[in-house]
């Protein structure tokens, strides 16, 4: 059973048990425009919610991506090194940024479900 939650800053976390896949929302990739480079963290790094986890760069600007919740990186999307455009073409799928493990008591109360997020960006 998966559940996708969103932060106010347009990151998503797709939760599966005690792990999650983190990326940026389709709305965010649309706002950023053509993505030409993604800087990803090292596997094993731990982040607190709000820490910078990645940098996504378009032709025009670099944008920091923040951890939507406390987590530890277990895998990064290596495919983005050669094809960062996957974030544009499939932000919620193949354009994921990192996979993480979560502590049992990870706080998700500040995150929005899809309905609330849709209202947030409307």
């Amino acid at each position, binding site marked *: 059973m998966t559940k996708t939650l969103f932060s106010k800053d347009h990151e998503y976390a797709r939760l599966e048990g005690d792990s999650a896949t983190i990326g940026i929302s389709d709305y965010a990739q649309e706002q950023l*425009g*053509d993505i030409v*480079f993604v800087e990803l963290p090292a596997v094993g790094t731990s982040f607190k919610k709000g820490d910078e986890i990645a940098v996504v760069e*378009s*032709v025009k600007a670099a944008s920091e991506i923040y951890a939507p919740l406390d987590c530890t990186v277990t895998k990064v999307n290596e495919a983005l090194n050669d094809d*960062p455009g996957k974030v544009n073409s499939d932000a919620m799928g193949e354009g994921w940024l990192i996979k993480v493990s979560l502590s049992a008591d990870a706080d998700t109360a500040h995150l929005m479900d899809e309905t609330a997020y849709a209202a947030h960006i409307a």
Partner: protein
Amino acid sequence: MVQPDAPPLKTALYDLHVAQGGRMVDFSGYELPVQFEGIVAEHMHTRTLASLFDVSHMGQMTVTGPDFKATSSALETLLPGNLKNLKPGSMRYTVLLNANGGIEDDLIVTRPAVGQAPDGVMFIVVNAARKSHDLAIFKAALGDLLEFELHQDKALLALQGPVAGAVLAKLGDAPHKLTFMQTMPARIEGMDCQISRCGYTGEDGFEISLSNAEATRMAEMLYADERVKPAGLGARDSLRLEAGLCLYGHDMDDTIDPVSADLLFAIGKQRRTDGGFVGAPRVLEIIKNGPQKRRVGILFEGRMPVREGAEIIDEGGAKIGQVTSGTFAPSLKAPIAMAYVPAEIATPGTKIKALVRGREVVGTITKMPFVRQNYARQPGI
């Protein structure tokens, strides 16, 4: 003068930009589209077919003096370009300098075509953000000799790309009359305009100056050719960077002289020894002794963009220079930048390092333009 907190101005094409899905941003006090379909798509379209850019924010000035000799001679006391030898219907890129040789603005001076305007009239196009600043300098220095008028009622459309000539030729004969950096008056479907073969993309192209009232109709006529698509400020920036063209306020400013900025061509050949323009003593000294730092192009390894503000460092990690513009070049699919580095290493082929978010990136100083310029050296399409 645009007040810092004043609402941005709208160009004559504002409604058309919005209708075409332009993402509007505040730029130099104007609300302009940063992109439509997307910067990379617009960039590549401009390199392969043709794009229309709204550059109405640029300052269009008319200078009037008693005759050409008087007007061009007076302007030469302020501008280092060779203006007295401009032929009718031709244009010249030059810079406005201060007493220290710093660049107050870069601009294009045009001598009207035969019969286009009275003999003492010349045109100047300046950067949007420097309009009132430049006007004040011109008036203070030359107000007794010449009249300066900044037009508020004119639009400027830039049609850029390899098929720009073919598109415009369907509406008039300008492409068959003009080469790069030439201008002529034209009447297209009853609209009086001035057409100049120039641009800021490295491609062949034309800038069309006409009244605000007719700008939208002109744009729609150009869009009637399906090879023409709208492009915004984002693509304009990546295109000019690939073409090795400076952006005022970034790649040069009032503390940087034209020799360090690698803009020697903006100074007339004879004038590099004769002087006779504001800032000449300092500029001639730098020409003679060589500049301490120089603007160069850098091609970086990998994909990470190296942007304005990034430090250039030496082997020991000490800062030796700074990036003034940088992006991921859509045509080259690689990061490119302009930077100032010590003159002794400013040679194509030199390896350098830049620092981005604490990470070192390796690059090679590269001759500009980064992509081949595609200017019309002869009339035609």
